[in-house]
């Protein structure tokens, strides 16, 4: 792509529905050849966003969102539910697949994530791409990503945590963590990190955008120039907003979602006690999400986050090999436990009787 010019569009702070509609409009316009390749920055008024294929009621505490004025929206990209507020920066690339040198979707994601990580490194943060879709700093997630393609056009987007309210996230998302206790909040904090925490102060937003812009320009060998949305995009945006700013789009009442179970498994071994909270799809034998906690010691500590990331959307049949791979990749060790012990905890969760309905956040004890 050397010599090409990409456009940089900053659409500022907006409600979630407007941001989703702009995603749709810019992707359509790119596919129709009405727009150049584009880097977009965006920010959100408080919002809970589910992935394209997710069930809103399954993923979010809707009563809490309603009470707090948190918008609920559905992305056009894949991946899991996230909480977004003005303390995060969104970045997005709208590209033609030609010129990327590959049609392999995982390779495209890796290339984009490596570029974003380089941008964060320029800010003085040891950010790295963690397969399949995260950017992390020493095992803690700082940017989650996802994409959508149609024909030759693609859009790939990421969140960047500038600052972050972990407790609020736990109240908004139905993640299979421990109940909402101080310990659960501390446990969640170990899994995410933000720029303010890493840098010691809030970095100027313009500096962050400039660093990301330079990194994408360098990674793809292009020049970047600020621009506004064109008339076709504005027209497409109005149409998209009319479709997406609706209950039909957000809740998709006619969709059928494969059954899921959320269960906890326990495994006691010489090294201690491992709990695995597991979201599982029985028909597909697919692990959707795993959350480990308990009393055990592993080194490096980031291994827990590595294992959880590696098990996202993984067939149960691949469980043991996946965890063994995590241990091997980090030359990791535990005291009195190994990869198979974590696998056993997950298998016990899959085999367990259904968990009793979890209390909602409002009912959950704050005592630890």
């Amino acid at each position, binding site marked *: 792509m050397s010599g090409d010019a990409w456009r940089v569009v900053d659409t500022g702070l907006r409600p979630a529905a407007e941001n989703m509609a702009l995603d749709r409009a810019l992707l359509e316009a790119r596919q129709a050849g009405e727009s150049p390749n584009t880097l977009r920055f965006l920010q959100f008024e408080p919002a809970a966003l589910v*992935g*394209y*294929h997710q069930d809103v009621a399954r993923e979010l505490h809707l009563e809490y969102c309603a009470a707090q004025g948190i918008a609920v929206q559905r992305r*056009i*990209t*894949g*991946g899991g539910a996230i909480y977004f507020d003005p303390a995060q920066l969104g970045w997005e690339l709208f590209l033609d697949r030609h010129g990327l*040198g*590959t*049609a*392999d*979707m*995982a390779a495209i*994601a890796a290339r984009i994530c490596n570029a974003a990580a380089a941008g964060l490194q320029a800010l003085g943060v040891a950010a790295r791409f963690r397969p*399949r*879709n995260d950017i992390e700093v020493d095992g803690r997630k700082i940017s989650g*990503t*996802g*994409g*959508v*393609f*149609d*024909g030759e056009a693609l859009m790939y987007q990421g969140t960047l945590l500038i600052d972050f309210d972990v407790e609020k996230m736990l109240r908004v998302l139905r993640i299979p963590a421990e109940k909402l206790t101080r310990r659960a909040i501390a446990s969640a904090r170990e899994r995410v990190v933000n720029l303010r925490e890493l840098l010691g102060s809030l970095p100027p937003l313009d500096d962050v955008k400039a660093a990301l812009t330079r990194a994408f320009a360098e990674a793809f060998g292009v020049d970047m120039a600020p621009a506004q949305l064109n008339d076709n995009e504005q027209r497409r945006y109005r149409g998209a907003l009319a479709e997406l700013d609706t209950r039909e789009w957000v809740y998709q009442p*006619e*969709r*059928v979602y*494969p059954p899921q179970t959320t269960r906890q498994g326990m495994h006691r071994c010489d090294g201690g006690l491992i709990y695995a909270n597991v979201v599982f799809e029985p*028909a*597909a*034998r*697919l692990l959707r999400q795993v959350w480990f906690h308990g009393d055990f010691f592993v080194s490096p500590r980031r291994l827990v986050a590595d294992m959880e990331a590696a098990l996202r*959307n*993984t*067939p149960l049949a691949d469980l043991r090999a996946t965890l063994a791979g995590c241990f091997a990749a980090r030359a990791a060790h535990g005291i009195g436990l190994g990869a198979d012990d974590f696998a056993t905890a997950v298998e016990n969760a899959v085999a367990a009787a259904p968990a009793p309905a979890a209390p909602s956040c409002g009912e959950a004890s704050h005592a630890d």
Partner: protein
Amino acid sequence: MGTVKGCELPEDLYYHIDGNVWARRREDGSLDVGMTAYACSLAGQIVSFTPRKIGKTVRQDKSCGTVESGKWVGPVKAPVNGEIVAVNDAVVADPGLINRDPYGAGWVVRLQPSNWEEDRASLLTGAAALDAFAARMDADGFGGC
């Protein structure tokens, strides 16, 4: 069984090369539609599938369902104009079927073509399809299934 760069591409099927989908004509004239082994290789493990609804009319090259893999969402393109007359519920429940058996149990929707005799001209089959996929794989920089 045809094979290009290690990807199975049965020569008796009709292919929409740009959409990377296949169609198999049934006795009643309807078409089973699915993703090619090549499309599966580019996507990786498929974890969600949402078909468009039975009774919906779809235009050629437009989406008759969406799949998700590795947090990427993408369409399964209709190879011809037609109406969706069946969806594969087994694939909705277990989308990995598409990866495991793309030309059999992993079919995704059944279309009743509205103008088969005309639309089939834009599809390729047999050796011509294999040649077209070989060219596309080269253009895509594809290493092999």
